[in-house]
């Protein structure tokens, strides 16, 4: 893998009121790299993920994407967001549109692609995530796992340079977690740059190039998964792993 940084966070700080949710977080994600962010609830993982496309603003530090500082607002910010795919915990498919329309919306309205071209790619993506036969249904008619796969297809339809996953399996019934992780694993193998916030340790082991461990708003340590899981350096990470891995 080339070491060409795509996402660079430098000394990022963020407060929610008095709560210091991101403390001097610095993290670099190279092109094609898959970084899985783990840590206890409330450690700032989701905030970190959402800051990368500025769904959360930051109070200090800097975030660069593809060599440029994140634009503050307006057209430039919209353009940046169109290049970064985002998958949410609660899917957030547009409830009043069919699955196909959900996937076509971005390419048609943001990129100005023709409907025919967008439709063809949308159908191919839905096929790829295994729900081509659900294209004309409304989100509510699909299972959680199917909805999340549709949401991944919607993000991929923009042909993003990177994908952000904010706890993509946390709202799913256990039997549907696998089908979503499978899609994510195949994306990782294809070389998509990914930041994945998750509690799925199996996915972190199998698909991550690097695991970043966060606690109390700090990025405590980062290491390749084999090294991290076998030999965590910090007390905080050892404690966390002993709690999540003993079952």
């Amino acid at each position: 893998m080339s070491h060409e940084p795509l996402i660079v966070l430098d000394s990022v700080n963020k407060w929610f009121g008095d709560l210091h949710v991101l403390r001097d977080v610095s993290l670099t994600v190279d092109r094609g790299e898959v970084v899985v962010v783990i840590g206890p609830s409330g450690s700032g993982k989701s905030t970190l993920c959402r800051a990368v496309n500025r769904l959360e603003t930051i109070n200090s530090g800097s975030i660069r994407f593809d060599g440029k500082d994140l634009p503050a607002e307006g057209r430039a910010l919209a353009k940046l967001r169109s290049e970064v795919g985002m998958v949410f915990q609660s899917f957030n498919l547009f409830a009043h549109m069919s699955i196909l329309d959900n996937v076509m919306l971005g390419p048609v309205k943001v990129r100005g692609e023709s409907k025919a071209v967008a439709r063809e790619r949308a159908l191919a993506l839905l096929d790829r995530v295994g729900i081509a036969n659900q294209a004309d249904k409304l989100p509510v008619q699909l299972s959680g796992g199917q909805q999340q796969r549709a949401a991944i297809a919607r993000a991929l339809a923009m042909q993003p340079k990177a994908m952000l996953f904010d706890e993509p399996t946390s709202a799913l019934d256990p039997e549907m977690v696998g089908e979503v992780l499978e899609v994510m694993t195949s994306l990782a193998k294809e070389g998509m740059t990914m930041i994945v916030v998750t509690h799925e340790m199996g996915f972190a082991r199998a698909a991550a190039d690097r695991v970043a461990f966060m606690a109390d708003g700090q990025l405590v340590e980062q290491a390749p998964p084999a090294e991290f899981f076998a030999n965590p350096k910090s007390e905080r990470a050892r404690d966390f792993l002993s709690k999540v891995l003993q079952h």
Partner: protein
Amino acid sequence: MDVFLDPANRQAYLEGFLTILKLTGASALLALLLGVLLAACRVSPVPVLRALGAGWVHLFRNTPLTLIILFCFFGLYSAVGVEFSEDIHVNNYWLAVTGLSAYTAAFVCEAIRSGINTVPVGQAEAARALGLSFSQNLRLIILPQALRSVVAPLGSILIALTKNATIAGVIGVAEASSAMKALIESNGDQTIAIFAVFALTFVALLVPVGYAFSALANRLVVRR
């Protein structure tokens, strides 16, 4: 009931209600358009637009409609010189439509704004994450869902508007309540019957509207 046996009286009755329908139709359309615009203003990131939306709602929702209609005639027309037509009847009709629309738009705006609050914040976030602009987000994602969630209250506003259209009578528009007053004045012995006919006509017109909007609300509701 022989007052309604006279064809001239029947004519006055029918024309009164036809005028109510015309006032309601034009005002409903304008109020819906204006109400959507005002709601968009009220949730916009631009402070001036937010203030404009809020100002409109506070002013028109809290002023008696009679005052607004009178202002349209004495203020807009007589003092400022706004004239829609040289035909006084047509002019008064449009002055009344102006007042009814301005007033009703305030209620439409607030209904839609409450509808916007029913759209989960994740919908707007997902749209932003795709790169949609604020106005695309509003037009394509938020308003369609918001409108579908407020069909029933919009029905109530339409019913209120239909009844409020009688206030156009104060500036000489020959609507139903003016027709009723004229009939009572020349047929004092049948006051109760005349009242009953006019009241029941309103009820007969508006009960189906209520049912239709309930049915529409059920059909259009966004299931999550």
